[in-house]
């Protein structure tokens, strides 16, 4: 090899081997969701709502009756479809924002406070999942983190006697600590052994569930003496999150905590050095490591913070929304909803705030829809997951609406 080997020229090499373009290696979830254009986003939501509408119409008695003589009198059919769908959505509106059927302003606006109440834990959970996303970690363990945190906070909430100024913060902090422990465990295992966090967090959901189940069978932990139900006694008043707008509304202090958490998360990600390192690790762990950042420790810390946020969501349930006692369904599906919130909010704190409010409104409205129109609240789950799916695949949405494909960069 005594001959000259020529230096390599460099224009943006046209024949980029995917192997060489390892930088482009998709940190896919973030990039794809972050790069979708706004139009496709709006259309994704519309599309999902459209599918929901079809489902509403399909199960409606009137629609099915009129469909029988569709060709004879199509107007009947379309009137029925309109009535079913508009009925459902106006019920949602009444349940989520403003009930125009009532007269007293406070009562009229009560639904909005319900929306905020439901949004609180969704925002907290969404922050927990979204923060982990920014470190390229997929935290599916929201359920377990909420359960463990709820159990811990609940234990403090009814087993301990303290004045409120100490009791409530203590219960909240203990819950957050338990969530941090449960989340941090997944981070630690990843840091130490390379175990994939998706698997570990899924499995920890169930371990947490059975742990709480077991705790609910022990009187020194969470069991109600003399009861066979797996449910703890109610929280002491000194440990319950106070109402924000007085007793007439269900909105409790948890929502304020959620707003605070949004601010803290925003600061953390955009202004703090820890957040800078979290993002560096998420975007390129190799470069982060070569730059002196301890990747494993960052993983652990991120998962602890994520766990504490989801823990706070669990605390919010136990000490705020349902203070009547810890039970196995205290997570109310929020652990998984949080994933959709984080995805819709593109893992950015303000986006998560907006997504949490939207899904909170869906929830609040969904319950009203169920009671007044007899349409199952589960419809909300369908719409919610469809939004996220469509949002993740803008090309699909464009294809459905026959929009020109975006020039790939």
């Amino acid at each position: 090899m005594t001959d000259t080997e020529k230096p390599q020229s460099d224009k943006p090499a046209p024949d980029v081997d995917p192997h060489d373009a390892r930088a482009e290696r998709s940190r896919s979830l973030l990039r794809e969701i972050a790069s979708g254009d706004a139009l496709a986003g709006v259309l994704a939501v519309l599309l999902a709502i459209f599918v929901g509408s079809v489902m509403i119409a399909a199960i409606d008695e009137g629609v099915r009756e009129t469909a029988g003589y569709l060709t004879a009198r199509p107007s009947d059919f379309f009137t029925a479809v309109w009535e079913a769908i508009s009925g459902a959505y106006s019920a949602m509106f009444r349940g989520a924002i403003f009930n125009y059927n009532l007269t007293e302003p406070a009562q009229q606006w009560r639904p909005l406070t319900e929306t905020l109440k439901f949004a609180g834990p969704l925002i907290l959970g969404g922050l927990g999942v979204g923060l982990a996303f920014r470190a390229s970690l997929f935290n599916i363990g929201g359920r377990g983190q909420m359960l463990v945190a709820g159990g811990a906070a609940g234990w403090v909430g009814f087993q301990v006697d303290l004045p409120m100024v100490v009791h409530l913060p203590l219960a909240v902090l203990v819950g957050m600590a338990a969530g941090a422990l449960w989340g941090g465990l997944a981070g630690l295992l990843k840091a130490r052994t390379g175990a994939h966090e998706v698997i570990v967090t899924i499995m920890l959901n169930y371990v947490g569930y059975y742990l709480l189940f077991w705790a609910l069978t022990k009187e020194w932990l969470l069991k109600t003496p003399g009861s066979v139900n797996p449910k703890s006694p109610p929280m002491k008043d000194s440990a319950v999150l106070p109402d924000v707008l007085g007793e007439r509304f269900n909105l409790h202090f948890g929502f304020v905590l959620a707003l605070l958490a949004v601010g803290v998360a925003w600061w953390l990600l955009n202004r703090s050095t820890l957040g800078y390192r979290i993002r560096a690790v998420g975007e390129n762990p190799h470069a982060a490591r070569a730059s002196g950042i301890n990747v494993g420790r960052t993983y652990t810390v991120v998962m602890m913070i994520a766990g504490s946020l989801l823990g706070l969501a669990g605390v919010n349930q136990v000490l705020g929304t349902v203070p009547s006692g810890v039970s196995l369904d205290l997570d109310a599906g929020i652990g998984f909803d949080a994933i959709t919130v984080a995805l819709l909010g593109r893992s950015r704190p303000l986006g998560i705030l907006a997504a949490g409010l939207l899904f909170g409104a869906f929830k609040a409205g969904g319950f009203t829809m169920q009671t007044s129109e007899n349409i199952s609240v589960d419809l909300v789950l369908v719409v919610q997951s469809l939004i996220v799916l469509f949002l993740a695949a803008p090309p699909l949405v464009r294809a459905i609406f026959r929009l020109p494909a975006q020039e790939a960069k």
Partner: protein
Amino acid sequence: MSTVTDTPTPDSGGLAADTAVAPTRKAGARKLPIALGVLTALLAGILLRSAHSGDTTFQLAAESDFVTLPDIVVPSGPTAWVMVVVCLALTAEAVRRMLAHVRQPGWIPIVFAIAWMTGFLSWAAADGRIRLVSLLGGAVALAIPLVFGALGGVLGERAGVVNIAIEGQLLLGAFAAAITASTTGSPWAGLVAAAVAGALVALVLGLFAITYFVDQVIVGVVLNVLVVGLTNFMFRQVLTPNAESLNSPERLRAFPIPVLGDIPLIGPILFRQTPLVYVLYAVVAIVAYALYRTRWGLRVRAVGEHPKAADTVGIKVNRTRYRTILLAGAIAGLGGAYFSLVSVAGFNREMTGGAGYIALAAVIFGKWDPIRATLAALLFGFATNLQGVLSAIGSPVPSQFMLMLPYLVTILAVAGLVGRSRPPAADGVPYRQQ
């Protein structure tokens, strides 16, 4: 010199251990002896803390056996201690092999497991009766959806598509099976519908994960939520009001196979099951053979290990992936039929209760191999059934901890403490053609 083969790096959604962060150390040799030692100590500890006196009866016969095996009655305390000694001996052998740098043969953990379990059961069921047939046969039955789900998971991941949506496939399978079997009056039609439903979920998974490169874990998780929402919605709006016509399927009955079913012990456990179980045996055998011994299997594995290499020899990567996950979805969907046609007759909200995630655990614990995954699923089924049996005879081990076992074992497995798992190299990595 190490390999420079262009291996795709699985850090975009795949489930591989992250070696960039935690360079995995060579701790393999010590694991087995340590694990055995800990378990032996645990058993001895249990015996010391609360000694049980009396006899334990192991009943080997089922009710209608052709040849009736006698019951085995043993003194529970001494038997348990004998088993501790056996376990100790096996541990010693494992230690000896470790020190001599000899490979640990597979029989050591197997014999150990049997001895340990025998010791544990004779202690736990002192003055009681263990019906081996119902213990093991029940384990097989409970493992049905897990095995189907795990096979579906193994197939998909071998082709490079991570399938978190097993849970959704099981659930939609259960739903479709119930409706179809009710409307047609034939549970067999229900089975077909279950398979179709599973494949349908897989199709959506493929659409997003393969065609549109959406992160596979995200699609899987969201699909599970979607299926829960859909089936809950339909259950409340459609099935419940019309339960008579839409949600009262005929149940699949146990169908003893002549001759095979009459073999003592094995017959009642394996061959007096529902037809779904026999379908399962066939599927396991076919998948295990086909994956390693046929052209189809070679190509599936190639696509999951190194899609670009497969592409350069003319294999259509994404088409292969689609076909494989559709088949995988159909298999997982069949497992769903267990819930609404075998376990109980009829569909109920979220009736799969996380079985899909246990199946996923079995995929990983089974190291992405069909036979091992099947065994892992059987083990998890056994753990679940054992919990039921123990709580019936009043075991001192809280049932919640027994139920936790599959999940704990899986965590230990991915953490590299129980065997090293190595997923297909391109697992979870979408393939983009230029």
